[in-house]
């Protein structure tokens, strides 16, 4: 067979054919972006997020194809440079601004989803617990958590609106001036210079209205937190609430408050954050914790929060270790070992040698894909467990997880097109960062959990230790 004879010119022609339709996609999203100011003030915030993310996708598509074409004519290094230049210079400064805001949205979404994940996970545990040990308290907590989550999410949208306003709307021009700590009055001067005073006035008014809604939602979330009996959950909730209110406060420190001349919306939010901090300190005074039922465990033998944390930690550590072991077993296969040996002998990259072997062994390739799919989520599961405080960073379970992740990274080092390697490294880096910070959240809730244990009858304490070695599943 002759590949050159049949496919010469195919790639360049194909990439040329893709340029126009992808340019259309890019133009489409650019037009959509022009509507963002409208969306920001009166539209649905979800549309804004959707539009920006899609626009970013459009940029990346164009850059990739442009890079591909450049590579055909030049070389990969120049292609990468071309793609970069194309995305920054052809699309221009707006793209950079969009990318900045888009990445912010991604972070915001990530924060939001972590919060939702935390709450959903807790709720799932409560739901399961209700089946094994139904009691009214868990039902009440479940409801309160649900409502807290909804209110906080709604209030957090205001923060996103502020971000979009700063970057894209007429407010963006004013607030960029304000970022230089100019007095509020000078904003109006700046506004005149832009000849957009009326638009700014409308935008400020809209933002103030939305700020009031956000304040109401934050207050509702605070009230609901007070109803949650589980100390661990309540502490998590307050941390999130205060952080979010302060985040919003930073963003609207320069926006005047209609009702309180001389003050800003930011001052209002800062006052709220202070109030929540006091509420939190009052509410989080150590209290007798209630026993937590563990899914799959008999209702007659309730667990403590500490026991629950230990079980989850062991479960996650087991998964990470098992993943590393499966990867090692795969790497120990004779075909794989031969590929690595050949790579060393002929001086070619190991991943390429393994790739070639996989192409010639469909069964092995299938096994590789299956294994990759099975383990790809494991690093995320591990970091989530740490992130939501279910595993303390200084616990034996955390050490097992960390060692398991390192094992996964080492075993996946020579895998072709492996997402596992990059993900695991990224998560290990995050983990290292986390270890440098005091684990105050886990320590505080652990203290509460220890009190629970200390206050339980001996018979119950005795039941905790042996069962805590069992898996959640």
């Amino acid at each position: 067979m002759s590949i050159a004879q049949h496919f010469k010119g195919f790639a360049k022609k194909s990439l040329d054919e893709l340029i126009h339709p992808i340019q259309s996609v890019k133009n489409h999203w650019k037009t959509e972006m022009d509507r963002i100011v409208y969306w920001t003030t009166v539209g649905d915030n979800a549309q804004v997020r959707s539009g920006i993310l899609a626009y970013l996708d459009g940029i990346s598509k164009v850059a990739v194809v442009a890079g591909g074409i450049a590579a055909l004519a030049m070389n990969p290094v120049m292609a990468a440079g071309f793609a970069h230049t194309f995305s920054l210079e052809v699309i221009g400064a707006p793209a950079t601004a969009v990318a900045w805001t888009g990445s912010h949205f991604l972070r915001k979404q990530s924060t939001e989803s972590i919060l939702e994940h935390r709450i959903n996970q807790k709720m799932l545990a409560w739901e399961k617990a209700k089946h094994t040990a139904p009691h009214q308290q868990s039902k009440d907590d479940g409801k309160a958590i649900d409502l807290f989550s909804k209110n906080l999410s709604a209030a957090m949208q205001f923060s996103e609106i502020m971000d979009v306003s700063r970057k894209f709307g007429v407010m963006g021009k004013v607030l960029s001036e304000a970022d230089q700590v100019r007095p509020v009055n000078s904003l109006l001067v700046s506004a005149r210079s832009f000849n957009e005073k009326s638009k700014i006035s409308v935008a400020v008014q809209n933002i103030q209205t939305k700020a009031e809604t956000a304040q109401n939602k934050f207050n509702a979330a605070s009230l609901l937190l007070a109803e949650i009996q589980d100390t661990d959950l309540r502490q998590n909730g307050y941390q999130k609430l205060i952080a979010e209110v302060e985040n919003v406060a930073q963003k609207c420190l320069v926006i005047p408050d209609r009702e309180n001349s001389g003050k800003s919306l930011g001052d209002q939010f800062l006052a709220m954050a202070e109030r929540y901090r006091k509420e939190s300190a009052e509410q989080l005074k150590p209290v007798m914790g209630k026993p937590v039922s563990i899914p799959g465990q008999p209702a007659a033998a309730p667990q403590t929060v500490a026991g629950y944390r230990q079980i989850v930690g062991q479960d996650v550590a087991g998964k990470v270790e098992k993943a590393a072991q499966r990867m090692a077993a795969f790497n120990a296969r004779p075909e794989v070992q031969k590929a690595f040996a050949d790579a060393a002998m002929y001086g070619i990259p190991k991943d390429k040698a393994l790739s070639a072997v996989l192409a010639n062994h469909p069964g092995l390739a299938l096994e590789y894909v299956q294994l990759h799919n099975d383990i790809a989520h494991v690093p995320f599961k591990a970091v989530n467990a740490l992130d939501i405080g279910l595993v303390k960073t200084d616990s034996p379970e955390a050490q097992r997880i960390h060692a398991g992740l390192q094992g996964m990274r080492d075993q996946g080092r020579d895998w072709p097109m492996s997402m596992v390697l990059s993900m695991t490294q990224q998560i290990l880096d995050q983990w290292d960062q986390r270890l440098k910070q005091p684990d105050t959240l886990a320590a505080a809730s652990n203290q509460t959990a220890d009190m629970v244990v200390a206050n339980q009858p001996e018979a119950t304490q005795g039941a905790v230790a042996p069962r805590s070695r069992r898996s959640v599943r």
Partner: protein
Amino acid sequence: MQTLADVQNMLQQIDQIEVFFRVAMNDPDEDAESQGVASDMILWTTSAREVLDGLLADLQRPNLTPETLAILQKPADVIAQQIANAADLFDKMGVREEVFGGVQ
């Protein structure tokens, strides 16, 4: 008009094509020109996968208008045709079965 299933199927085909060319690129039996062409083809599969991945995400977004869908799907239509063209060439080379494993 490409559905989600179509796009996923196309992604699978792109992967199969890329595996073929990756092997060829590193095959010492292939001449330098063929290895170069194989390298070019991998650039194409990489770009096509990026576009299809984007479309896969786009198609799952809420509130897409028919006009938007039509614009978004155009690149996928082009790639579908390109995959068909590549399949014909694989046919001529007598390796279609080897590339797609009979699941195309």
